[in-house]
């Protein structure tokens, strides 16, 4: 099969997946117990039954979920309109974009660090198998992987703010709120240190463990023996022959992790009072803000699916066998 066919098939599959996810999400939110109108207004609000009815009508909740609400939503989306958030009374697209920057910064920094460190550590541990280095790296990774994000965040926050004078929360100092990011870059970076560190430690363990076992497997292959026999140095063997093959599971993991990192970001954002997507998702769920929830999950689904597409694409480069099957 040619690469084009392969990619075309993957693309179709991605679109089908997206449709299924979106449909399931739509109905999933609507079976949640509770009343979105009450949730949006809050408890301590004295409003008349008529006003509530008017809100219900405004939100389209007076119509049956299927087919009216469902097709209305899909119809809106096809026109590129994600609707208006009920609780924030702002367009969903705008709300999501306003939070995306912060979260993207946190997630991408955290991912880059954890991937680079995790892979290096895993490679090194696999290479120095059964030495003290391997055992320490393995122990560290297992502990890091098993540590609850929330707890680690609190500990790092307490330590970092006490000994290093790092900020206890927020994405910038209050005085810098609202300024363009490039003007306050040092401040932004200062606020990112602890969240990123937390993120890195939590995800590093997993990458390290996968990389280590993958390296071990690869190192036992015949072609490694051949490479050694050719007289290549250990470094050359690792870099030219082992690394490339051992990377395959990591690519899959990174793509898969993208969805989980956003949910992991909820904890980190909460500990560090960091204004991002994770917290937005949480509040949208609490308030049963369906348009916002749907928009958020659409964004999440699209990013995971796109990440998987990219992973598939990378595979065709990394592993020629994929193209041939």
């Amino acid at each position: 099969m040619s690469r084009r066919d392969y990619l075309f098939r993957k693309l179709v599959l991605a679109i089908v997946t997206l449709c299924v996810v979106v449909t399931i999400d739509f109905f999933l939110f609507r079976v949640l117990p509770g009343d979105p109108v009450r949730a949006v207004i809050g408890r301590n609000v004295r409003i008349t039954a008529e006003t509530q009815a008017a809100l219900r009508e405004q939100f389209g909740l007076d119509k049956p979920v299927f087919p009216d609400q469902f097709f209305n939503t899909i119809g809106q989306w096809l026109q590129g309109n994600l609707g208006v958030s009920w609780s924030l009374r702002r367009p969903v697209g705008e709300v999501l974009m306003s939070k995306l920057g912060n979260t993207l910064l946190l997630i991408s920094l955290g991912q880059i660090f954890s991937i680079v460190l995790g892979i290096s550590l895993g490679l090194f541990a696999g290479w120095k198998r059964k030495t003290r280095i391997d055992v320490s790296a393995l122990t560290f990774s297992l502990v890091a992987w098993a540590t609850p994000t929330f707890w680690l965040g609190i500990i790092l926050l307490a330590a970092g703010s006490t000994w290093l004078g790092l900020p206890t929360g927020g994405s910038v100092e209050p005085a810098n709120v609202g300024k363009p990011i490039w003007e306050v870059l040092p401040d932004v970076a200062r606020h990112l240190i602890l969240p990123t560190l937390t993120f890195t430690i939590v995800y590093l363990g997993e990458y390290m463990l996968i990389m280590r076992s993958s390296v071990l497997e690869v190192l036992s292959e015949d072609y490694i023996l051949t490479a050694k026999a050719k007289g290549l140095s250990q470094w050359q063997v690792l870099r030219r022959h082992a690394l490339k093959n051992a990377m395959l599971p990591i690519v899959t993991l990174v793509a898969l992790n993208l969805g989980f990192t956003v949910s992991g970001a909820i904890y980190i954002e909460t500990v560090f009072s960091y204004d991002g997507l994770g917290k937005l998702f949480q509040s949208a769920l609490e308030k049963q803000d369906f348009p916002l929830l749907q928009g958020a999950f659409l964004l999440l689904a699209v990013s995971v699916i796109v990440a998987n597409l990219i992973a598939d694409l990378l595979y065709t480069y990394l592993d020629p066998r994929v193209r041939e099957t």
Partner: protein
Amino acid sequence: MTRRLSVRPVWFAVSVLVVLSLLLTACATPATTPTTPSTGEPAAPPAPTAPPEPAVLTFGWLGKPDTLNPAYAFLTESYIIFDLIFSPLLTENSSGKYAGGLAESWTHSDDGLTWTFKLYDNIKWHDGTPLTAEDVAWSINAVIENPDGWAALSGYVGGFKAASAPDAKTVQIDLESPIGNMEYRVSFLYALPRKDFESFATPEDLQNFANDRAIGTGAFKLNRFDKDQGVLILDANPDYFRGRPKIDQVIFRTFDNEDAMVQALKVGDVDAVIEVPSTAFETVKGFENVKVVQQPSRSLSQLIINSAPADHEPTPTRNPALEDPQVRLAIAHAINKQDLVEIVLQGLGKPGDSIIPPTLGGGFWYNPNLNDVPFDLAKANDILEKAGYVKGTDGVRAKGDVKLDFRLQYPSDSDTAPRVADLLTGWFKEAGIKVSPQSTDPDSLTAACCPTADYDLMLWGWGSDPDPDFMLSVLTSEQFVDGGWSDSGYSNPKYDELYKAQQVAVDPAERQKIVWEMQKIAFDDRPYIVYWYADTLEAYRTDRFKNFIESPIVQIEGVESLLQVEPVR
């Protein structure tokens, strides 16, 4: 392909280097660049010749205002900010008396139907234009004329006919009938700029207005409110009619995590904390240069017993045993309020009995003669035995088919309720009453109670207004409607009648008598078993600011307090 792949590590290395250098500059810069009014770190002692740094007082809190539009604001946080940026006619001072807000003096006619307020001189809006009595009258009339739009304030103008401005310094309010708590009522009616609020066609349009550039006449001007970032910045108003505050800026920072907030106080990232979690109180007490402020509050926590009338629509789905006053009495005997306070609140509060907290009006409204039911499990067992509830083999009492087996729900956002529910379950079990505690999210809880009456027992709480009217209204039958305040469904014509009577009782002593009687009725009928009044716990750094007011009525962030706070130089 090998070439492509070999490129990647280089790219990775470069990006990592870029990021690292970025982070390193970040670590280095704050030390070298004298950044803007450093709100976080404790300020370095200024050089003797340098002009004084602006005094920026930073508060940490766990919430944030829902909106800066008083028409539709419901969270306490909003009202804390309103008091700082807007001014009502009168305001409550630290002794619980009403003092001048915008009004320097006030009188009412002998029939109590006309109230006249004389305004202070030289009151200016934050944009520099002078405030007139006309502006104040317009703000009050807006609420009277459009109660649907001004949903959050409409309760305060009940019985108001109209406001007018006989001259530029006088505001007059005409009433339909005399009102006993007029001073409290006007303390929530802020003067608001007509040009910002008059253009809305429908109540919804008015309510959707965020008022993010709020203009008022208060001691502080709004500089910025970024709801997403949880940052609200106020600047001192140099033209404030009662004198400029001694500090230059106040910042409110929202923390999503209480441990982080406590840590911020410890390292000086914030100068004061509005709500110290009770579990962290002892720790905060031990911090260097931090003073804790523990004061009785206006809040109460209660066990709610489903008291909806049997003919309520829809039919209450409660255990019928709860209709039996003897069962209610036994439940009251099986609650050790002292233990709840000691164990769950760590002693930071007082056992409760009345729906009116003892702090209202300096204790004037609280009925001290309720004679609370003592904790006595033997008595509880005895009462149930006599009422015909016999212990079954499983230790749970029953009378015929009616088994004393109750659902006990509590809001999932409460940190104390799970422990209270746990303790109650143990005591109730010894009395032969089985309860199944269940954490429920607040919205579902609202859906279950109000006004569906689909529950047995609930744990919940209230924050009371300074005047008893609000707390009393919660138990009236007219509030048990969709969107009303009542959660118990309690309905007692006598109580409802008294509620109306206290609203028009102008003589405080007469009103007090009625208010006391209502507390007694509510206590005896037990729609609520009030178990504690938790204290307010606040804390501030003594090395940064001094002269906070520490009182049960005016909190450290109240406008009276912030007018006298000054930096430690």
